[in-house]
């Protein structure tokens, strides 16, 4: 039996972080939780809470900033500990949660380099978005409720990344799902919004069921659910099928949470929530939980190359698929949503091919530029909404066809959005270029002579799969540049299509909304320096890689070995990537050369891509409707009523039969009664006489 966490705690040598600020790790989680409680209380007590409550404004973003500050302290402490940090720092292993039979779970939190990166992203980007929200949600009736949910989300997200065991991670995992559900349906008076939240929760639950199953498998096979116990088990288990099974089930979970095929359906609908929510939850943090989980379970996936290939394949397919859809979306948030799905696919490719650093790197840079894009889109929507409100018009403030030339009215936003677009398109030296390039390079690097390459997925050799993935990744990069440029052009350039009256009212948002956007813009510009490739001598090489090495290094090596591309090849690849990005942007501009009509005048776009391949309808027809029919028609109407009816019918039948029999037997004619007597006597005597 692998060592349990508590045993590890007792046995382990003193940890370098002992006695540092790290012991306050639980506070990191409790702070936003406290914020959620306070804001929730305000929301429940003060109603109607039309006015924003100063306490909420203070507490909501306040706890996040405090958490961010603490996170920086933790980071500093870890930096201080330097290379001696080889094992995660554990807190709370002695706080029991579930103890039954041989299963012992505690509220142990663990801090290691991977968690730290996630914590910084969550609290950092989270803080910015909280601040932005103060402006964005200023006039909303559910101001306090909003911050309660948002704080709750951060708390759950932190549990997710800090939990030291799968079940605790699962607490955060479902917790963020709940927060997401609540925030998507935040404006619940529109049933569509609430339905979108429900859809998100249910689709996520499919993945969660996989997670539960994975844990069940793991527990029954390994006897542990702690991260710390897994390597020991793997060492004993080798490449047994059960490892692959666990990994594949975890992939299912990740596909749900990170909106990969085929469970991505919920994410576009999730845009029903307030835009900052989309930025934080559905772009920067929650949806990357799947990537985090794969990275966290690196050892497991490393021992199951097939599962890793599957991760990469799923990622690649999703990336391409979503990118094509994004080409023809008109709703600005939907463009970004599909883009997110696509970029998550990239991250999956990264962690799938064992380039955990690359995956996490892209996760971080994506958090920067996608949050920026969403917040920028939020500013645009905010402005459009106000403008239409001002003009007393009921029109779609999110539709690209209603925009155009907004750069003149929202110059800062337009600038920042352009930066972000360049980043996501992969134009050097912006953040996205480095992370994306690293993923693609790693993929190709592992296509030969690695365990991944020699494994096979559904009969296809791993090397072929990886080459395919690379190709798909490259095509996707092209498409990404195309659709992002298209979006940018339609929104900010050309002639304005918002209408005279509305145009006059278009203006930049309040400083508190602009400032975070600018900060994110700066991060987008500089994010690439986190992990510079050796190829480009711009600064220290592979900082993030070295940082994460204690966590993912071993797994990464196990899958990919020390695979490195030749220098020349790398140069060619970089060139190719830049070329593709530029080509894509050019294509994007070319595509948008014709002016479009405002939404109200434009014919409905019925192209397959605009309809997102009708995936929702297919899912409705082949999954939802059959289940519903099964439940309502077959089970409720037929089976249940059948069981019910059989019970009461048999009762009624017996009574009716009794009544009929009674009428015949006891018809009152005593002469006929004698027959029973005589007949009975004959039978009885016969029984005795015959034997």
């Amino acid at each position, binding site marked *: 039996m692998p060592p349990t966490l508590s045993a590890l705690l007792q046995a382990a040598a003193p940890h370098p972080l002992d006695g540092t600020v790290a012991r306050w790790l639980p506070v990191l989680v409790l702070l936003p939780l406290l914020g959620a409680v306070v804001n929730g209380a305000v929301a429940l007590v003060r109603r109607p809470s039309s006015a924003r409550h100063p306490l909420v404004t203070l507490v909501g973003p306040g706890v996040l900033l405090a958490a961010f500050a603490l996170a920086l302290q933790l980071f500093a402490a870890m930096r201080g500990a330097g290379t001696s940090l080889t094992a995660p720092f554990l807190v709370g292993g002695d706080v029991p949660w579930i103890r039954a039979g041989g299963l012992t779970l505690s509220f142990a939190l663990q801090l290691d380099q991977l968690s730290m990166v996630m914590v910084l992203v969550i609290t950092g980007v989270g803080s910015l978005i909280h601040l932005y929200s103060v402006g964005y949600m200023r006039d909303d009736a559910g101001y306090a409720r909003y911050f309660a949910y948002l704080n709750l989300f951060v708390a759950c997200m932190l549990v997710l990344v800090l939990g030291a065991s799968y079940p605790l991670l699962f607490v955060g995992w479902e917790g963020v799902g709940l927060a997401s559900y609540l925030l998507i349906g935040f404006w619940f008076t529109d049933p569509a919004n609430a339905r979108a939240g429900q859809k998100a929760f249910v689709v996520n639950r499919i993945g969660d069921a996989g997670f539960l199953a994975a844990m069940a498998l793991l527990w029954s096979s390994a006897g542990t659910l702690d991260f710390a116990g897994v390597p020991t088990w793997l060492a004993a288990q080798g490449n047994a099928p059960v490892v692959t099974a666990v990994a594949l089930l975890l992939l299912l979970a990740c596909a749900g949470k990170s909106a990969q095929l085929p469970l991505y359906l919920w994410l576009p609908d999730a845009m029903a929530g307030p835009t900052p929510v989309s930025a934080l939850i559905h772009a920067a943090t929650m949806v990357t939980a799947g990537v985090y989980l794969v990275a966290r379970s690196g050892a497991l996936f490393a021992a199951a190359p097939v599962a890793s290939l599957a991760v990469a394949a799923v990622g690649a397919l999703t990336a391409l698929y979503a990118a094509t859809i994004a080409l023809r979306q008109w709703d600005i948030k939907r463009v970004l949503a599909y883009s997110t799905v696509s970029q998550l696919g990239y991250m999956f490719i990264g962690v799938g091919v064992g380039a955990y650093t690359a995956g996490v790197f892209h996760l971080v840079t994506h958090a920067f530029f996608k949050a920026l894009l969403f917040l920028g889109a939020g500013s645009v929507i905010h402005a459009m909404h106000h403008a239409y409100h001002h003009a007393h018009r009921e029109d779609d403030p999110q539709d690209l066809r209603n925009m155009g030339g907004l750069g003149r009215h929202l110059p800062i936003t337009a600038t920042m959005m352009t930066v972000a677009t360049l980043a996501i398109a992969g134009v050097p030296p912006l953040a996205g270029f480095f992370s994306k390039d690293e993923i693609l390079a790693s993929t190709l690097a592992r296509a030969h002579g690695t365990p991944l390459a020699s494994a096979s997925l559904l009969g296809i050799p791993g090397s072929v799969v990886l080459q395919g993935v690379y190709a798909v990744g490259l095509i996707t990069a092209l498409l990404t540049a195309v659709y992002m440029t298209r979006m940018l052009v339609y929104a900010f350039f050309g002639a304005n299509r918002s209408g005279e009256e509305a145009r006059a009212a278009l203006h930049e948002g309040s400083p508190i909304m602009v400032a975070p956007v600018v900060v994110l813009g700066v991060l987008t510009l500089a994010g690439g320096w986190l992990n510079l490739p050796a190829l480009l001598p711009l600064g220290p090489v592979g900082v993030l890689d070295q940082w994460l090495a204690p966590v993912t290094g071993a797994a990464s090596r196990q899958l990919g070995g020390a695979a490195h591309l030749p220098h020349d090849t790398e140069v060619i690849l970089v060139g190719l990537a830049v070329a593709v990005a530029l080509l894509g942007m050019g294509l994007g501009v070319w595509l948008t050369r014709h002016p479009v009509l405002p939404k109200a005048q434009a014919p409905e776009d019925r192209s397959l891509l605009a309809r997102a391949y009708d995936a929702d309808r297919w899912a409705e027809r082949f999954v939802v409707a059959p289940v519903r029919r099964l439940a309502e028609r077959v089970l409720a109407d037929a089976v249940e009523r059948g069981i019910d009816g059989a019970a009461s019918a048999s*009762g009624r039948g*017996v*009574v*009716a*039969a*009794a*009544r009929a*029999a*009674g009428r015949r*037997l*006891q018809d*009152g004619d*005593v002469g006929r*009664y*004698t027959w*029973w*007597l*005589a*007949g*009975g*006597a004959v039978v*009885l*005597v*016969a*029984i*005795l*006489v015959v034997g």
Partner: protein
Amino acid sequence: MMASDLLRVLAPELLLVAGAMVLLLASVWHPQGQAPEGAEGAERTAAMARGGMVLCALVGLVVTIAWGDGVGGSADGRLAADGFRFTLDLVLLGAAALGLALVEVDHGRFRGYGPEVPALMLLALSGMMVLAAARDLLFVFLGIELMSLAVYVLAGVQRRSARGTEAAIKYFLLGSIASAFLLYGIALLYGATGSTRLGDIARWVAEHPAGGGLFPAGLGLLLVGLAFKVAAAPFHVWTPDVYEGAPPPVTAFMATGVKAAAFATLARTLLEAFPGAVPLWHPALWWLAVLTMVTGNVLALAQRRVVRMLAYSSIAHAGYLLVAVVSASSAGAAAVAFYLVAYTLATMGTFAVLVVARPSDDRPIEIADLAGLWLVRPGLASALAVFLLAFMGMPLVGGAGFFAKWLVLEAALQASSPQRVLAVILALTSFVSAGYYLAVIGTMFLRPRPDQAPVVRVPALAGGVVLTCAVMLLALGLYPSPLITLARRATVVTEQGASARSAPTIPPAAGWRAAVAR
């Protein structure tokens, strides 16, 4: 033959018959005048009934004393004096006393009973008590006839009631046919074994384990006669009509007394005379029990009239009791005794409620007549619920009814050849019985009281009967130990076991003349 000995054995019966005759005389003492309404001499009926109750108490005392004295059976082995007899005597006396009380209550409402009625009930009771003690098929026949003749009359005693008269003639005709079967059975057994005494028959059976001759036919016909009296299907056909047509107090008396006496004699006969012939009669009785349980319970489901429903229910209970009998053990006898106590209490209580709640015209009481009874008479409704739950065999709320079923099941499962299938059938048919008992309870409790429903008045005596039955049932349900002890003492002591005093044996076949000459 020692007369004093016989007097000791028959003291309760003698006292009872003597008392009954005194009451009879008293009832005709006054010149019979035509009362303005009701039966002749109706004004004396209540007093007679009370006298009868006192007499029952006295006889009960005598029974207790006789039992305590350890009186043995009669010297000739024709009358038993064992625990079974005395327990059954007490049950029968209780049933008669409560029945008399019901007669008085009903008489108080309808004034339909002549002053001879209590005396007739007591005479019927004497027949029943003879049955409890009978160890000779002759006494079985005579006891049954004595009891039946009185009950035939009682069923039709309300001469203004056409329904009562119809019930009486139906009962009479079917009863006399059954008697003829019984008698033929006795004759054939006599022919086969040479005697009508149970002990002699048992000896003969022991000597002829293969049976043979007239024996099986005789046993079969005997069982037909007894099965008729206990109302076992398919010999139950009289029960619904007669129960329904007879005046309710008489029905109550019939349902308890007649049934108890018939079971007493059935159990004793089978256990004393035919223990060696179990393989012979077991299948027949087994099927009889099954058929009775199923028929009674299923047909009761269809009833809307309460008494008719109770008639089927009494058939069902006969089935349960037959299960105890089928087990052919002393545990079975104990179960019969216990069951009869619980059953008598519940039946009497139920009929007490029906007597006060029945419509004032001659219309039979329907379940719907009880609608919402809980709202106007919560105590009465609750008591009836207790009685019905006792019939169902629910523990605690059904009082001793549960342990009655328990002991029956115990007897069945602990028999030398465990009657598992029978036990399961018993359980399942009890389940069916819930359907109709709960229909009544549901009507009382879950339905509103109709506006035009008459006010139910509860005379003190009726209240007393209801209360007594309910309290005793509940108390025995909570703490059944005394009754279990009593029932376990109510074992049948076979003649061989009991009479060391060796009765003179009947002269052998050819030598009867010699005996006469002596």
